[in-house]
């Protein structure tokens, strides 16, 4: 089949559109159930990877002229009625599905090319979920048709579930949506074919971006570098506690690793854990796996001298950043195109003085 010409999106354009509509800022706790309406456009295009290779993607995008991979983050509240309209701008058939978010099934069924459909459901169950295209699984999900949605407990601003360990405030929560990318598969799907080769991921992203180490083109550019992307990098003061909803759209199992402090591990694959373990590695299952964790901005426990607010002030006065990385410890994920260590799925954790 002749390869079609696809609109090319730079990573900057891709993330820029996503950043325009952070779900986090649109939600605040309330004592009543609301009706939430959202429209996604299924679009396609090429996204340039860190080694300069263009790869085909599809996305649940915010407009007909954009390509959002992953789709925009959403937070709703327990009991809300959610109406999601999907406008399929492509020729291929797609769908929209979320597993477990409602007591009833959430799946649009087939949305033919050029058609639209609205999925309506009640958000019955608190937690973190991947929304995704369930058709032609897993191909449409892998190629970019996925995103994160969370259900907050009714009227609660700082708990994952009623009675859970608390995080800072409604804005003290993040999504880390991971994906792994085999460009051979992506480009086959873009050409209307079913991949026939063994799956070999060559690029690794969190929230659609990969890292750019200092000195690399795009380093510290929020729409290019996952270490600078405000959807991914963590900023906090001593005493802050940040909830992170990790979702894995890819096919590879991962080991989420924070430096600086252990994480508090709250849930796995939608199940709240009976005991909260403190871990520096949390396993994240493939194919829609999820974990919820809290990163406490406590003084790094093994630092000598002890870290205090004055330590952070001193660093800032000297122009130093008090920073630690988060990266996946299955270290193949830290590469791009078979090399380029630090151009994979990682971000940074910034401590700031009060």
């Amino acid at each position, binding site marked *: 089949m002749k390869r079609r010409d696809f609109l090319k999106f730079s990573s900057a354009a891709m993330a820029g559109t996503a950043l325009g509509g952070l779900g986090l800022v649109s939600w605040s706790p309330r004592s009543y159930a609301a009706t939430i309406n959202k429209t996604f456009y299924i679009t396609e295009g090429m996204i340039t990877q860190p080694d300069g290779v263009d790869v085909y993607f599809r996305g649940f995008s915010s407009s007909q002229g954009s390509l959002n991979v992953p789709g925009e983050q959403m937070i709703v509240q327990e009991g809300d009625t959610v109406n999601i309209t999907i406008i399929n701008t492509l020729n291929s058939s797609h769908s929209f599905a979320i597993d477990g978010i409602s007591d009833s099934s959430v799946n649009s069924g087939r949305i033919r090319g050029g058609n639209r459909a609205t999925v309506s459901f009640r958000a019955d169950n608190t937690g973190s979920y991947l929304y995704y295209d369930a058709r032609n699984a897993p191909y449409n999900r892998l190629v970019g048709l996925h995103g994160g949605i969370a259900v907050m407990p009714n009227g609660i601003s700082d708990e994952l579930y009623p009675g859970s360990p608390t995080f800072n405030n409604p804005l003290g929560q993040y999504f880390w949506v991971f994906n792994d990318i085999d460009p051979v598969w992506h480009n086959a799907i873009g050409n209307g074919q079913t991949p026939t080769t063994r799956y070999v991921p060559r690029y690794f992203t969190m929230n659609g971006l990969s890292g750019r180490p200092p000195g690399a083109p795009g380093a510290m550019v929020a729409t290019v570098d996952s270490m600078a992307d405000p959807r991914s990098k963590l900023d906090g003061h001593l005493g802050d506690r940040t909830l992170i909803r990790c979702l894995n759209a890819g096919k590879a199992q991962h080991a989420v690793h924070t430096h600086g402090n252990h994480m508090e591990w709250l849930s796995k694959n939608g199940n709240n854990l009976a*005991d909260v373990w403190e871990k520096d590695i949390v396993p994240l299952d493939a194919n829609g796996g999820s974990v919820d964790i809290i990163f406490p901005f406590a003084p790094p426990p093994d630092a000598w001298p002890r870290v205090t607010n004055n330590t952070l002030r001193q660093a800032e006065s000297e122009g130093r*950043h008090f920073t630690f*990385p988060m990266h996946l410890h299955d*270290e193949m994920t830290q590469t791009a195109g078979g090399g380029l260590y630090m151009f994979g799925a990682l971000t940074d954790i910034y401590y700031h003085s009060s």
Partner: protein
Amino acid sequence: MGRRRRSSTTTTQTDPSPTTTTTSSMGDGGMGGGGGGGMMGAACYVYPVRPAEVPALDTPDIVYNRGIDMNIPMTMDDGTVVNMWGFSDTGGGGGGMGGGGMGNATFPSAAIRVTQGQIVHTQLNVGMMMFHTIHHHGIEPEYRSDGVGHISWDVQGNYTYQWRPMHAGTYFYHCHTNTVLHAEMGMYGALIVDPPEGPGTAFEGGPTYDVEAIWAVDEIDSSWHNLDWAAGTCGGDVGLNELNPDYFVITGVDGAQSALTAPGVAVTMNRGQRLLVRYICAGYLPQQIRFGGLNAEIIASDGRPLPNSVNVTKIDAVSAERYDCIIQTSQRGTYTVEVDIKDWITGDVLGTARTRITVN
């Protein structure tokens, strides 16, 4: 150009690494797109020490010295010799520095064992043709002692990491420069923090043990083992996205046969004794460890006690997780411990490493 700016901090730490002309972080001009990944001395995105930012050091309670050894031949059970890299113990027991980063390292590297609350110095000595770091995994020190190149710096010459462990348990240390390659090449060793009670107690106020085993289970892809230390850092496909292991080892011993009986890996204990297994998932791929039908009580993970211990006969783990388990039985016997190493995508078992617990 770097994300971390220089400062004018006064330092008492001596002999900071100089910047070289052959290895430095690449400028803003672009990535080059290929070549150089396997060439000696060609490296990109490594970050020499910025002397003005190096912190002052306190007086340590204990010092470990580590050099670099990139020629550690390991003979596998099938007779194949695979070259490993590691950290040499250059202290010689007297705290002196090694010579230019060369040394007689083992795979895995010699363990670091300290007591909770001690101020520890890990002095790293790297030769002038390369960069490395030491990251004390699970230990959470100040960022300049964390050993992460892009956050602080990579080391060429001498550098001292200062830390004070506050939680007893099982950790490991590894290189964090071009980590995907260096850790796979074997640049790691166990790191044990004993509680104030000393060895024989798992953590402060925690369970006691009579016998101890440190099982660092790892997979090796021998096709990676001819690469240069900086392979891939400047671009070009050197295959670091794809790990196809052909050997599976337990604490540096081939798990095909040798680990079944190797001293220091295989365990011999008496009925009623309490064995503490410090299991480290030292590879990159998912693992499942089974204890030969014995019951294991997980008491801690990643250097932290569990709120409630968990009784298991097997554990699924991912890269760099650690599990501390107490095993105690009144039954004589020989129990074969098996660790499956699984494909990170398909979950297929790629290989199994085995050792034994013999109970007399």
